């Protein structure tokens, strides 16, 4: 079985089951309870959009997710950001998710989810000042280099 076929098969098993998708959407909607404090809410349609983008992102980066996934963690980590507001909420979370998967690969899976999210948040709020391109192209590159050198 080729990699692409395996990905498709495992993704199908993980994500296409009605019950699983519904649960994932519910989990995203439940985040609203907390994020409302920061003026951020997801509609059902936006939650669905995030889940579709999650699938595409994973496919692009050649990764497979087992279980709930990273979205809720990303939302809870970034919802208090000074640079995220309702107008750019969904787009930012989508991009952060994409950057997250990219850097899991770039860091050779040597970094845990929590470590990477913490690093991303710190850089996003600090040196990047909310600039996602800078986060992706510059700020995170240094950690990837460190890990590949064996300095992590």
């Amino acid at each position, binding site marked *: 079985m080729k*990699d692409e076929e395996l990905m498709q098969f495992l993704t199908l098993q993980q994500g296409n089951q009605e019950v699983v998708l519904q649960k994932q959407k519910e989990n995203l909607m439940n985040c609203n309870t907390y994020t409302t404090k920061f003026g951020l809410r997801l509609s059902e349609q936006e939650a669905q959009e995030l889940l579709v983008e999650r699938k595409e992102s994973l496919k692009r980066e*050649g990764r497979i*997710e087992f279980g*709930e996934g990273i979205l809720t963690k990303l939302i809870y980590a970034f919802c208090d950001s000074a640079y995220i507001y309702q107008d750019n909420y969904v787009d930012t979370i989508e991009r952060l998710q994409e950057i997250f998967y990219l850097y899991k690969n770039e860091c050779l899976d040597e970094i845990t989810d929590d470590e990477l999210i913490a690093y991303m948040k710190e850089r996003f709020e600090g040196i990047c000042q909310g600039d996602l391109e800078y986060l992706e192209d510059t700020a995170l590159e240094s950690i990837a280099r460190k890990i590949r050198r064996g300095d992590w």
Partner: protein
Amino acid sequence: MKVEKKTNEWNAAEWKTGERKDHGMEDYAMEEFVPIVSKLVERYTSKESSSVSVAVARQLMEAVVYCIHYGLRKSSKYQLDSGEKIPAQTAYELGYQRIMERTKQLNDLYTSMLPTFSAYDNRAYIDTIMKGMPAFFLHYDVQFAPQDQILTLDYPILRPLGQEEGIEAIDRYLQATILEQTFLRVYPEEYVRAVLEQYHEDHKELLINISSIVLQNSLLSMWLRKPLLSREFSLKDCDWITDQVLMHSSVETEQILERLLQILIKRGYEDNQELYAYLSYEIHELTIRLRNAAEHENMALFLGCMRGS
């Protein structure tokens, strides 16, 4: 749950036919393996990553399939009392357990083999058995990569491994090594070294199977009615063998060599049928080599007759 155990891991019939039967894998759909892979991913990542690369997912999927397949192969029955197949998770756990047990058994077998093992200074043999095998037992990952035998197993055994991988490959390789050592041990060490030297002065560096060279020497000596421990063949011997090979068809030559092997095994190895089955695989190859040498009139070169005769 009924599980029948085989008492021997390998028997003469398997060596002879090299058959590998798939027991019951077709009863499982791949979908049944996904929850097992999912749990394995959790363990692999220590629950610290929600995703893995497709390469890792593939490796872990293969690990699950390997365990189940191994478990099914080593039990002739893998069914509940009701006659249904056992759940994939249970099949996986049983297969995993069996691999752990077999790895320990092979480690013990390897340790017991070492005191009498001789590589006859062949570098590949030393590297594979003396250095490679300890590394295998140290690093073999039953949980996350049981399908990976790690070693390249450069020293060639008489019967190629074929599709075997993981612990099965090591199992077969060690069993083959033990049989070859059993065969060689009967000969004085200086005789084996002399035969190898006759074969090629750089034999220590070559990827050659030592027992095949010694076996060839023995069978041809027997065919020539010379003493078994004859180290050299004269030009007259080479001409005689050439004539015999050309006089007989390949099938007839094989039959002659098979009979000689049977005599050798009966007299020298207490009629060890497992050894006979293993060594008889070489008869076909030897026949081809002899026929090539005879047809191209270079039997003397092939048997090293030119040197000192």
